[in-house]
């Protein structure tokens, strides 16, 4: 039965049910314990599971993310929370040089059931050092899986799937989504972790997006439908691997492709999606693939400027209209 919950509650429930089922799971990060987590995802777990399984850490992102790597090598299932993606820059050695390289360079000897949960994205006037998206950096790392849930239901499924996986998984959580509501049915059979989902069907254009931008795209799609433009909205749900088949099938139907992402456009996730789908769907396309992305600019503190650096519902509507008309 479905309940309306906030995304953080779905993740909190996912953590709880997994930790109850497997005592090799522990979570670690800044303020995840007594405080309950900056976005409440670990609320209540410290009291229930104790300090060894819910560990407040010093501010040492490189150190405790690397600790998760070492623990995963000997069969623990660490869930490391890095307070924001911006701080994860200090942990990139552990993520890129260690977590993804050890299973490979040992010739396949070691498990790496490591989950790294990272809030990120442009939130509300947090300024340049707290408003980044790093998916482009992480996508270029073979052996790293990246989940980008946009709904409570996906957050519930994907966090649990990430914890159960024996491979390193990064869960990129958008800071503005923790308190967004959606339905959660804990009895539903899970969708495979990296499969894309079509959020709205349509035949005028394929809009591919992920994380918070999908919600904006869905709102844009509803307004466009009122104008008689029926677009298809794909929520990728995963940036590595990417479910190409769902994308290709859609583009083969609509013949137009727009990619919407909050991250900077240059060498970003959208660049990979555009390149691959141009290669694989060239003869299906009626117009060049377009990207509608964040500006190539550090995020300004000023609220008006900040809002103008990333796609909005109305800017998405304009981008769709331009592309649909260009193909006519």
């Amino acid at each position: 039965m479905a309940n309306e919950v906030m995304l953080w509650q779905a993740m909190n429930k996912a953590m709880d049910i997994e930790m109850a089922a497997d005592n090799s799971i522990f979570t670690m990060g800044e303020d995840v314990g007594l405080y309950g987590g900056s976005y409440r995802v670990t609320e209540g777990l410290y009291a229930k599971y104790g300090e060894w399984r819910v560990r407040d850490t010093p501010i040492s992102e490189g150190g405790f993310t690397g600790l998760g790597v070492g623990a995963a090598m000997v069969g623990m299932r660490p869930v490391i929370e890095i307070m924001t993606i911006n701080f994860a820059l200090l942990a990139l050695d552990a993520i890129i040089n260690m977590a993804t390289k050890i299973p490979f360079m040992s010739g396949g000897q070691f498990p790496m059931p490591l989950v790294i949960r990272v809030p990120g994205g442009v939130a509300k006037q947090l300024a340049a050092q707290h408003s980044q998206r790093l998916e482009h950096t992480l996508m270029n790392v073979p052996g790293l899986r990246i989940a980008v849930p946009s709904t409570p239901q996906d957050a519930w499924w994907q966090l649990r799937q990430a914890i159960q996986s024996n491979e390193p998984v990064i869960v990129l959580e958008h800071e503005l989504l923790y308190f967004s509501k959606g339905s959660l049915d804990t009895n539903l059979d899970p969708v495979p972790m990296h499969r894309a989902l079509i959020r709205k069907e349509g035949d005028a254009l394929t809009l591919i997006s992920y994380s918070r931008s999908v919600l904006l795209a869905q709102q844009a799609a509803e307004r466009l439908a009122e104008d008689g433009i029926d677009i298809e909205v794909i929520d990728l749900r995963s940036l590595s691997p990417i479910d190409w088949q769902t994308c290709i099938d859609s583009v083969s139907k609509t013949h137009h492709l727009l990619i919407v992402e909050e991250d900077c456009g240059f060498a970003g996730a959208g660049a990979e999606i555009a390149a691959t789908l141009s290669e694989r769907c060239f003869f299906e396309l009626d117009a060049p693939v377009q990207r509608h992305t964040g500006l190539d600019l550090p995020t300004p503190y000023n609220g008006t400027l900040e809002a103008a650096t990333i796609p909005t519902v109305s800017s998405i509507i304009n981008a769709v209209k331009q592309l649909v008309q260009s193909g006519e």
Partner: protein
Amino acid sequence: MERSVLKSMLKDMLLARAFEEQAAYEYTQGNIAGFLHLYPGEEAVAVGVLHAAEPGDYIVSTYREHVHALVRGVPPGKIMAELFGRKDGCSGGLGGSMHLFDKQRRFMGGYGIVGETYPVSTGIAYAIAMRELPEAVICFFGDGAVNQGTFHESLNMAALWNLPILFVCENNRYQIGTEIHRHSKVTEVYKRACAYKIPAEQVNGMDVIEVYKATQSALLRIREGTGPQFLEIETYRLRGHSMADPGSYRPKVEVQAFKDEDPVTVMLQESLPEYPSAEQISAIGKDNIEHLSEHMHQADLISPEEFLRMKQQVADSVEQAVQYALQSPEPSMEEAFSALNCNRGQEVLI
């Protein structure tokens, strides 16, 4: 100390020296490529520490780790094959000299990024502590690694949570080409551990018996629940940083330094790289193998005949290791991808 332990340590030291010298030769023959960091001069550290460890303890090492793996019991052929990049290497030919792994022997890797051995060790130790097991982690690093952020982050967490780690600093006084007085304000590395209330001591790394005893008592304290311990073992590498850095300048620099010459000038004057001769090594009195073998001869713990026999056995096993490596095939691209996806299992991703 028991005669059998001493003999076994001497044999491992001889094996370590012979193996590394052979590796240097194979590098010049083109059988080994890339970076090759050799251990001659430092044998007493790996041998003394690892002989005092239990089979249940975990070893985390650096990129100068062939000897740690050897002493841990990884067969010489598996290590040589790995240096050759062959399928039968201990990392399937995918890791190479800097990335030896042997899960079965709890040899948790050689790491190529300076300062990575600390977090790997704290992670393993966290798992041990959570499960309340009697095991310990031995974390190796060099003097050049103590200025890396992870050193301070990890020592703090290890002490804060009372993790069972023995931190072993192999202080060979050089971070690649930079001498310790030029890279650290505090050059007595063990003193840094007091910032984290970790008991620490300085050990003469030219004396394997001293290293063994210090390790034994540090591990005992860890198993008694005292928390992390720290040993700074003063040692000396006879070769350059890697085969890419023949570094013959360096022992000569030391020699010259004794004569009050400016080491920088001496370094610049050096043009032809060559390995230091036995005379040069003994002139600076820093060979740990001679130290142990002389001690054993004098105490009548080993006869000259047995010593020669031991050397021959060691030479034979190094030769066999080379043959094993030469006969092993190269890994396939398919094997490289299956190593990448080794933890995939039956999971349905999409």
